[in-house]
């Protein structure tokens, strides 16, 4: 019988496979192009630049060698990590024994080479290139969107060529709107082809081409006049001039009128660093301005454009209290005591086990940590859970059990891995930055990518081997690979064989692998050669942190088991309070309890269980009390007795942990009148309930986490300088009670749970309207 293969809902545009053995080394190609690789392992080469001796690995480009020597050579078309172009000729330098000036960006160092970057000839050439660039360039920097942060403007300022002898009329093409988010202004384009390459090589979207030729050459989008792409805006960010501009930012402001705060994107679990630019307490733009953090200039469409929900006029800005069946606007002064009063009443009447708490996978570690403390010590219940999108707990347990608790790969590790196995998930949509890192590993380090998936996913184009399994067949395949199942297909056999030839494979898995299958995967993975490392893929900014902080009924902060008395004692000593011994309800059991009437009061922080768990809304009506802390009205909040307007990621400080287990600092960027953070809410509620905690800020909580949560003993200074600091959780959490507790929301590139519904930008692009998961 013919096995029915799972038909993917994804549309895959006709994209030719990259021809592996037909390497085309041109400056402009769509196949692998010139990109010399320095070999750090080899004996270094010594050369002289401006009289300075420099030692660099062979294969290094002169421009990079100069950088190491602290000498800057101007460049436009050269961009580290992208293929070489030799197009802008800005980087011309004099090299002794060579008849003419050479481009530093395409010349590889040689032993004994003598390079000069500041001779009259070189300086004149630079000036000449700038003069050429300005011939058809509008000289209206004051009104240009890039004014103040334009690489052309900077170069003219530094190297001269301001006065022009160009007396002809300038060529002109009209500005084009490529999409709602991307605009192209031809006269400003200097044809450095960065946008073309980043879209092709970095994003593997390949949405740009070049039209016409000569002085009329222009960048063209893939759909005639329009772009159909991932709308990541990388091209805008990487454009050295104001040729590509953002539909959300253009002409709104000037860079110097903004205040900038570096923080962390709040959408997926990859934790990209981003800089929010604020004017008048409104976010105007997000980009990773200083290119710090592992994501460098990368942000996906959500990170770059999907923050506008923060400014949305439907944001909740005052507490709502249900009066006579209707939610009415109220004040914090009225709402908080009311919450306390109702909760106290329920606990008094029905006992603490009639109360339950559902936390968020987007809020900070500090908030999650306090929420756990609040539930366990103030309310006195372990009825505590959140929407788990990956089984982090089983991963920690399995690695600890195998005595391999250091085997967590960081997000940086992925980009330099030599071998990667991705089981399930669709990183292009669900983890755009990890997908980017994977592509980078393949592109720059010839990494071998292996995929085991039941759907067609875009990363296939980079894969060395793709094993396609029936829907839901990923776990079964892992069991087969581990020898726990007899149904080993030929493909799996080959995969096994291939992986046994690799070393130090990074295994990345989605929600398809959970519970005991995680243990199986870990045990099998550890038998592969080298230091196998693991990444579990969870949705949203802090799924990982929610698990790490013990927002689970049977697991304590740091993955100690509730049943483990030493683990309990450790946390109890930090809290100076007892943790109830009776184990709590998990989220499904909480929701069943709501339906059956056993749960009388429910507190929901930043979560929408009605939607996520398809809970019939009328069940909520059975509750004696429902409190929801949220940014926007949701299906769940509509049924609440009290709705508290919470702050978004932009309006609070704290830390979040990415899906790889790296902690990063979230910085308060702006204020939103009327809102309060979960941290503030919890502190207030605890105080009103007779628990005057001594924390004053999120930092106080963080210090306690570092001191008391196993695996979180991280160096605070590293965190504060903006690094992503890896945690090392270890523990023996109880086994996953039931696999249906773990499932991903399977967001697409353009969705992000509730908040994306309130993003103009994410909803404005046509691609978002295509079948979920449209692939380019």
């Amino acid at each position, binding site marked *: 019988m013919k096995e029915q293969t799972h038909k993917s809902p994804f549309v895959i545009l006709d994209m*030719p496979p990259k021809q592996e053995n*037909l390497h085309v080394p041109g400056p402009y190609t769509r196949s692998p192009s010139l990109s010399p690789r320095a070999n750090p392992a080899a004996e270094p080469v010594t050369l002289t630049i401006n009289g300075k001796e420099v030692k660099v690995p062979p294969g290094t480009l002169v421009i990079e060698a100069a950088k190491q020597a602290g000498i800057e050579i101007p460049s436009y078309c050269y961009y580290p990590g992208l293929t070489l172009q030799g197009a802008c000729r800005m980087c011309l330098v004099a090299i002794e024994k060579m008849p003419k000036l050479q481009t530093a960006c395409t010349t590889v160092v040689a032993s004994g080479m003598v390079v000069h970057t500041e001779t009259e000839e070189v300086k004149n050439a630079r000036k000449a290139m700038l003069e050429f660039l300005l011939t058809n360039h509008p000289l209206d920097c004051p009104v240009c969107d890039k004014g103040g942060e334009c690489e052309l403007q900077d170069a003219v300022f530094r190297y001269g060529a301001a006065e022009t002898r160009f007396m002809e009329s300038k060529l002109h093409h009209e500005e084009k709107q490529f999409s709602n988010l991307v605009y192209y202004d031809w006269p400003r384009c200097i044809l450095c082809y960065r946008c073309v390459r980043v879209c092709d090589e970095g994003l593997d979207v390949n949405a*740009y*081409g070049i039209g016409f*030729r000569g002085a009329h050459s222009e960048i*063209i989008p893939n759909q005639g006049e329009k772009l159909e792409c991932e709308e990541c805006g990388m091209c805008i960010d990487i454009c050295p001039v104001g040729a590509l501009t953002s539909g959300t930012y253009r002409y709104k402001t000037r860079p110097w009128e903004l205040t900038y705060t570096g923080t962390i994107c709040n959408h997926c679990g990859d934790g990209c660093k981003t800089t929010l630019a604020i004017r008048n307490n409104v976010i105007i733009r997000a980009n990773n301005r200083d290119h710090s953090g592992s994501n460098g200039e990368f942000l996906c469409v959500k990170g770059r454009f999907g923050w506008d929900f923060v400014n949305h006029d439907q944001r909740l800005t005052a507490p709502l209290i249900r009066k006579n069946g209707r939610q009415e606007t109220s004040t914090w002064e009225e709402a908080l005591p009311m919450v306390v009063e109702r909760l106290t009443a329920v606990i008094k009447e029905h006992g603490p086990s009639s109360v339950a708490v559902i936390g968020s996978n987007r809020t900070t570690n500090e908030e999650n940590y306090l929420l756990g403390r609040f539930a366990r010590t103030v309310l006195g219940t372990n009825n505590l859970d959140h929407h788990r999108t990956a089984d982090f707990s089983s991963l920690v347990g399995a690695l600890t059990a195998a005595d391999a608790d250091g085997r967590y790969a960081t997000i940086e590790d992925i980009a330099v891995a030599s071998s990667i196995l991705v089981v399930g998930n669709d990183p292009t949509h669900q983890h755009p930055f990890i997908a980017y890192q994977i592509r980078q590993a393949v592109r720059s380090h010839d990494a071998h990518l292996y995929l085991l998936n039941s759907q067609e996913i875009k990363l296939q184009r980079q894969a060395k081997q793709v094993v396609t399994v029936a829907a839901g067949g990923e776990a079964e395949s892992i069991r087969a690979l581990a020898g726990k199942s007899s149904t080993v297909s030929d493909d799996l056999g080959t995969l096994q064989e291939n992986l046994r030839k690799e070393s130090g494979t990074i295994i990345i898995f989605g929600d398809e692998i959970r519970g005991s299958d995680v243990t199986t995967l870990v045990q099998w993975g550890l038998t592969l050669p080298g230091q196998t490392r693991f990444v579990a893929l969870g949705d949203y900014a802090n799924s990982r942190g929610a698990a790490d902080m013990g927002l689970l009924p049977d697991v304590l902060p740091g993955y100690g088991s509730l049943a483990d008395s030493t683990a309990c004692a450790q946390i109890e000593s930090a809290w100076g309070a007892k943790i109830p011994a009776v184990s709590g309800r998990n989220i499904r059991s909480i929701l069943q309890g709501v339906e059956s009437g056993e749960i009388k009061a429910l507190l929901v922080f930043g979560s929408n269980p009605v939607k996520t768990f398809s809970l019939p809304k009328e069940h909520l009506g059975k509750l004696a009390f429902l409190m929801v802390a949220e940014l926007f009205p949701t299906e769940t909040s509509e049924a609440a007795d009290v709705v508290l307007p919470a702050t978004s990621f932009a309006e609070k400080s704290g830390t979040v942990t990415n899906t790889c287990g790296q902690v990063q600092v979230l910085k308060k960027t702006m204020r939103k009148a009327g809102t309060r953070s979960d941290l503030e809410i919890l502190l207030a509620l605890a105080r009103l309930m007779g628990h005057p905690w001594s924390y004053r800020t999120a930092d106080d909580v963080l210090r306690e986490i570092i001191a008391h949560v196993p695996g979180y003993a991280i160096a605070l200074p590293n965190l504060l300088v903006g690094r992503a600091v890896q945690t090392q959780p270890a523990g023996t959490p109880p086994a996953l009670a039931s696999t249906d507790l773990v499932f991903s929301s399977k967001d697409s590139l353009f969705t992000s749970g509730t908040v994306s519904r309130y993003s103009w930008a994410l909803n404005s692009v046509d691609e978002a309207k295509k079948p979920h998961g449209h692939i380019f």
Partner: protein
Amino acid sequence: MLSDSLLKKFDQLIARYPLKRSAMVPLLLYAQDEVGHVSEEVIAEVARRVEVRPIEVVEVIGYYSMLHRHPVGKYNVQVCTNISCMLRGADEVFEHCCKKLGIKNKQTTPDGLFSLEEVECLGACCGAPAMQINYDFYENLTPEKFDALIEELKKKEPRSKM
């Protein structure tokens, strides 16, 4: 849309190369010969056959001066005005062509019969001034020769079309 013989030619051409994409320019040119210009359908068909995305075809069309995305006349008159021809009076010939056909550079006569284009060196410098009508060379041009030629071509056309 495209004739069977052309599609057969497509197959033969593609088979010549180790990489299908190599056949792109020849395919486009032969398709243009048949259709009159590189239409959207031609772009799609060629992209499909040489296994590239349409934008890659569009990029290539934009680069080559012989490929047009818009219809040109049945007879595409291409007059060389580059140096060898210029020295032999090509500018005057070209001006004459404009007058005779009543159109300017890169325009087409209203009946769709003739297009006029000033082109770069055709490789007929020793027979300057030179021109091509479609792919046919005419050398040592004079206004009189040009007029005679145009009249002859017009005569070949069925009256109804004019």
